[in-house]
């Protein structure tokens, strides 16, 4: 399977490169398809390949010694999965699992270093991506520290809406629990509470947000 330079351009790292530059770096990448449920890389493993998500959804998570999972984020197309371990030479701080059939572009670390030397403007893009990631992690810390569970669940609902055509991303209560740092039963109770307050409706396979403003108010409330 060959790498498409148009898809490379859609990746934030390489969006500042022109067509000729993209064609020049294209041979350094390879494409990989991962099936739903497969693990792409493990927390604690050394990393020698940088992965970019081209299509599908990938769960990025940490696992406690008791086996409890905390979802750090859900990676969407054009996201980079494991830049931290590539750039600081440390082990993967997270694991990655495909939540659907996933297509990835991978580049070996030494080839990435060559790319950065030959195209220094890519480094500026990388800094922006890492800064945005830091901001996102600060937001997660804020949520876990200052928000009620129901507020965290409300935020997850607002951040993961789809167009209603059935083809969008779907979440289980267990996944919501892993994202909110709580137990599945607590998520179930939170959803019930939101439904009783008329903020959401639970339909077959759908959570319908009927009062977006009220849901936002739940998110803004602090512990």
């Amino acid at each position: 399977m060959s790498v498409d330079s148009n898809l490379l351009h859609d990746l934030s790292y390489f969006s500042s490169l022109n067509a000729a530059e993209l064609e020049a770096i294209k041979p350094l990448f390879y494409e990989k398809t991962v099936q739903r449920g497969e693990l792409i890389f493990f927390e604690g493993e050394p990393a020698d390949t940088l992965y970019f998500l081209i299509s599908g959804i990938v769960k990025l998570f940490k696992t406690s010694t008791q086996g409890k999972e905390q979802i750090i984020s859900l990676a969407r197309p054009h996201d980079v999965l494991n830049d931290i371990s590539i750039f600081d030479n440390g082990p993967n701080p997270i694991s990655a699992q495909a939540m659907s059939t996933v297509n990835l572009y991978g580049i070996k670390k030494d080839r990435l270093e060559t790319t950065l030397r030959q195209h220094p403007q890519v480094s500026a893009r990388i800094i922006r991506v890492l800064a945005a990631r830091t901001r996102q992690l600060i937001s997660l810390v804020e949520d876990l520290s200052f928000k009620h569970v129901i507020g965290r669940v409300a935020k997850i609902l607002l951040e993961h809406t789809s167009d209603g055509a059935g083809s969008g991303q779907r979440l289980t209560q267990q996944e919501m629990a892993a994202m909110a740092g709580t137990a599945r039963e607590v998520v179930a109770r939170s959803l019930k509470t939101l439904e009783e307050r008329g903020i959401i409706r639970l339909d077959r396979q759908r959570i319908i947000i009927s009062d977006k403003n009220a849901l936002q108010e739940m998110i803004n409330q602090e512990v």
Partner: protein
Amino acid sequence: MIQMPEINQDKCNLCGLCIEICRCNAIVLVNNVVTCVETEECHWCTLCEAICPTGALTCSFEIIIED
């Protein structure tokens, strides 16, 4: 086609708790394989997902904003 809860057979240990708890008889044992039968009686109560000890059964939600 009616969407039903998904079963990951690799994780299923055939405990049968989901079959017991399902109130609409949508989950059955067929040739020693836990199977979901398509039925509109399934109202997505998610009790099967809640009781599954291995996480083999999942009931996912799409989240939409009402216009």
